[in-house]
């Protein structure tokens, strides 16, 4: 990362970033640009450096945050109407750690409202365009962050990954995207989607940057009881020998060019002396169904607090309290939000809990076991991130299930809590980015980043 090594000033970096942000305005990447604030901070940092004062590890580095991170920079909206006007007095732990290292916040990026989606089309502010083809979706839900990095507007951007929301847009835009082990980075101050699968992660252009950001952002947080000890900075990188590929994912449901990309990476690994083994993971077949029971249930619960009473949007055409609730939530949520909330209420409602939620929770156990088994046979798994490259805008907008199928290969990691790193793996004939994901056991985040270097074609 071009950390202020005095070859270039922070002010220059920030100006460039803001200029590009304006240049690519029609991609609809940002929900808020921190122009004055960023330039002011840059000036301060340049002054510090000039005065020879100590500066942070990320001094002067322009970055963006997905608009579901709380921070007192513009409104935190999660791209949802219902959070309109919400100026957070609080800063998310992850963002605070980055700011403490003198990184400079350029703006907030677009997402599917409340991160419900795989295309960033479900945003109250409209869709974000794909960095390589303006006819196509950016992927989602962290579409804005992926494109902001892909188009070189910022050095890195934060994202959240509940079922693929970092990895899939990364693979659609030819950048690295890491979904860390569950509990690696604090969720404090990040608008919750599904508490038991939400992960905070990053988009970067290089693996070195990813490693640096992880070393800064990871670790225990007293404000998030589900954070793990700071294993990332205390783990030795293990020597890898075997890489597994999952038979069940190597079929016609996957685009030929993606299967080809996977093959060529396997060849590369073999040529470098690694052993490739084929694995059967039958339970993964049920991961998506289990995911679309557990996650909507947690969504229903986590979105109950958006009622127009204490913050955000409040419908003014309400005379009584019940109307206030109904109108606010009716006008404030996007259709996909409503679908998921209702599904969640269905699987939790009395009479259906055991048949749906409890059963899904048991299937989740099977999936965890299957991953444990897999990692007893190999060091990492290499799989596609999504069955297809970026699809056309509006192509799946009216077919929720077709949209859900996009998450086929990404959701099982979230159910198991294991880390996954999306890596660029070439392009299709039509020039669309292809991404693969490297999957490891829990707490192997650092190993993933190291091993990904092996997968780079040495040119």
């Amino acid at each position: 990362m071009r950390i202020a090594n005095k070859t270039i000033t922070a002010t220059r970096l920030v100006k460039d970033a803001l200029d590009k942000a304006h240049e690519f305005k029609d991609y609809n990447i940002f929900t808020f640009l921190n122009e004055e604030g960023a330039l002011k901070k840059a000036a301060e940092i340049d002054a510090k450096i000039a005065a020879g004062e100590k500066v942070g590890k990320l001094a002067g580095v322009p970055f963006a945050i997905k608009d579901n991170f709380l921070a007192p920079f513009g409104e935190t909206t999660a791209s949802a109407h219902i959070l309109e006007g919400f100026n957070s007095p609080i800063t998310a732990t992850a963002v605070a750690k980055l700011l403490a290292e003198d990184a400079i916040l350029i703006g907030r990026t677009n997402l599917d409202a409340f991160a419900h989606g795989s295309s960033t089309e479900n945003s109250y502010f409209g869709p974000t365009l794909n960095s390589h083809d303006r006819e196509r979706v950016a992927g989602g839900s962290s579409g804005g962050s992926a494109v902001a990095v892909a188009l070189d507007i910022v050095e890195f951007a934060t994202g959240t990954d509940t079922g693929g929301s970092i990895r899939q847009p990364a693979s659609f835009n030819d950048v690295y995207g890491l979904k860390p082990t569950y509990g690696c980075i604090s969720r404090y101050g990040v608008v919750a989607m599904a508490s038991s699968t939400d992960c905070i992660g990053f988009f970067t252009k290089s693996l070195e940057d990813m490693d640096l950001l992880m070393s800064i952002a990871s670790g225990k947080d007293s404000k998030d009881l589900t954070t793990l000890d700071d294993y990332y900075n205390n783990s030795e990188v293990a020597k890898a020998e075997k890489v597994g590929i999952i038979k069940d994912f190597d079929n016609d449901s996957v685009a030929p060019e993606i299967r080809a990309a996977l093959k060529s990476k396997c060849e590369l690994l073999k040529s470098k002396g690694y052993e490739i083994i084929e694995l059967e993971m039958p339970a993964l077949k049920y991961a998506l169904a289990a995911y679309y029971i557990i996650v909507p249930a947690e969504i229903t619960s986590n979105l109950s607090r958006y009622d127009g009473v204490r913050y955000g949007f409040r419908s003014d055409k309400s005379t009584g309290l019940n109307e206030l609730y109904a109108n606010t939530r009716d006008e404030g949520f996007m259709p996909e939000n409503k679908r998921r909330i209702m599904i969640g209420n269905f699987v939790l409602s009395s009479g259906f809990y055991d048949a749906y939620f409890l059963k899904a929770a048991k299937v989740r156990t099977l999936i965890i076991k299957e991953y444990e088994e897999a990692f007893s046979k190999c060091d990492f798994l290499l799989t596609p991130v999504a069955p297809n490259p970026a699809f056309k805008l509006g192509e799946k907008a009216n077919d929720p299930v077709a949209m859900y199928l996009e998450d086929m290969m990404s959701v099982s990691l979230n159910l198991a809590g294991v880390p996954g790193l999306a890596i660029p793996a070439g392009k299709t004939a039509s020039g669309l980015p292809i991404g693969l994901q490297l999957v490891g056991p829990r707490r192997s985040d650092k190993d993933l980043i190291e091993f990904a270097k092996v997968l780079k074609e040495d040119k």
Partner: protein
Amino acid sequence: MKYYPTIGIECHVQLCTKTKLFSEVDNDARGKEPNSCVSPVDYALPGMLPRLNKEAVRFCILAGKAMNCEINEFSRFDRKHYFYPDSPKGYQITQFYQPIIGPGYVELPSGIKVRINHAHLEGDAGKLTHFDTYSLVDLNRVDTPLIEIVSEPDIHSSKDAHDYCKELWRLMCYAGVTYGDLYNGNMRFDVNVSIAPEGSAELGTRAEVKNLNSFRSVERAVEYEISRQSKILDKGGRVIQETLGWNDATGVTTGQRSKEEAKDYRYMPEPDLPPIHLSFEFIKTEAAKLPLMPKDYREKFGGTIKEDILEILLDYPPLMLKLEQLEQSLLGHASARPVCLRQFASQGASVTGEPRSSSIVTSGRSQKALLLVANLFASVLLAEEKSAEYLNDLPTAAQLNDLAEMNEKKELSSTATKEVFLKMFDPQMKGKDAKTIAKELGVIQENDLGALEAIVDTVLAKPETQKAQEDFRNGEEKVIGFLVGQVMKESHGKANPSAVQEILRKKLSN
């Protein structure tokens, strides 16, 4: 027809932890500004996560032990969903599937045992104040830790319902887990009442009276429900299962028209809180910290203090604590069990730092002393105006011990003893020892024989006593009383009568 009532009670106990269940803000909002004890977590901002208070978990162990309950090795939190402005998250964090406190029982003074089904830890709701066109929301009470104690339907009379609630109150106060301030809603009761014809096998349909906040209202509400339901059944009608409210003024229960029954709370395991796993050792260590319970005091003082007096005193935990301290200072050693009720610490109700009485004495004396002080307290509680106020600032064990000692040594008559005792609560006399107070009141009895003889002599020298002296010498025993009276008069009541009589007899017999 004659009906047999069956009653089950759910009791909410607000815990007196320093901070709330899930955030580090002041948990005691009594008399504080609206929304002044509210963290971003309680306010349910987006992205806020609960931060469990370990003390609340410890309190559950104490409360559980106080009710002879099993403490579950594994417990977990769940979310209970409903929309209302008093619930900022849109759900209450409670324990639906795996509560922390398991089955147990509470024994009433009458000996009746009421089984506890379980008790769980949960967060309280906020407060709404309704006005004609709008309502105002105060979130101070949001996520104050609560224990909900669920009894089995083992209660069969309004009196037992009353006694059960009162005993629960005592247990929770003595366990030190709540302020027990009923006026401020520290304990609230939901009562399930059903009746069935005497001897019939199955129970009748139950109605639930919610949110009772005094033992008396529990008793009255149960009485009312029994008669209401009896009338219905007598007319051949059927009781409908519903939730009722209680109007203390009119003494009537009324349907709340709420959809409570239909409500589907969609319970879901709480994903933001790791489960609780209590080791046997941890439970043992914490349970050992349970202060003395009413039954311990009954055992301890039952032999010394009359039962009815003791039951009165048991309603005032700080008093029992004071007696405990007094005994300790008398015996000159500290109790094996902790006796500090932290929630009453402000009222000096802590053993630590209590000055010990100089005189280490036999337990025989200590029993007398205890009895004396217990009776003094009881008489104050029964007789004195605003007796409760007397309890805000109790005399120290040392003061009480000295008082007992003076009474013992006949330096104080029983009347004088009570006078001095009452003065001890008088702000002006604060901190002064018994002797000083007695001196100031001038009620110390004259026991110095020399001084007494002098007084006797002056009396015997008086002409108006000559006749009586004659009569006594001629064997008229009873006139001694007259002579003693004269001496007492001469000594302004300070002379010790028995000593006076002795001297008189000696002098008149030669």
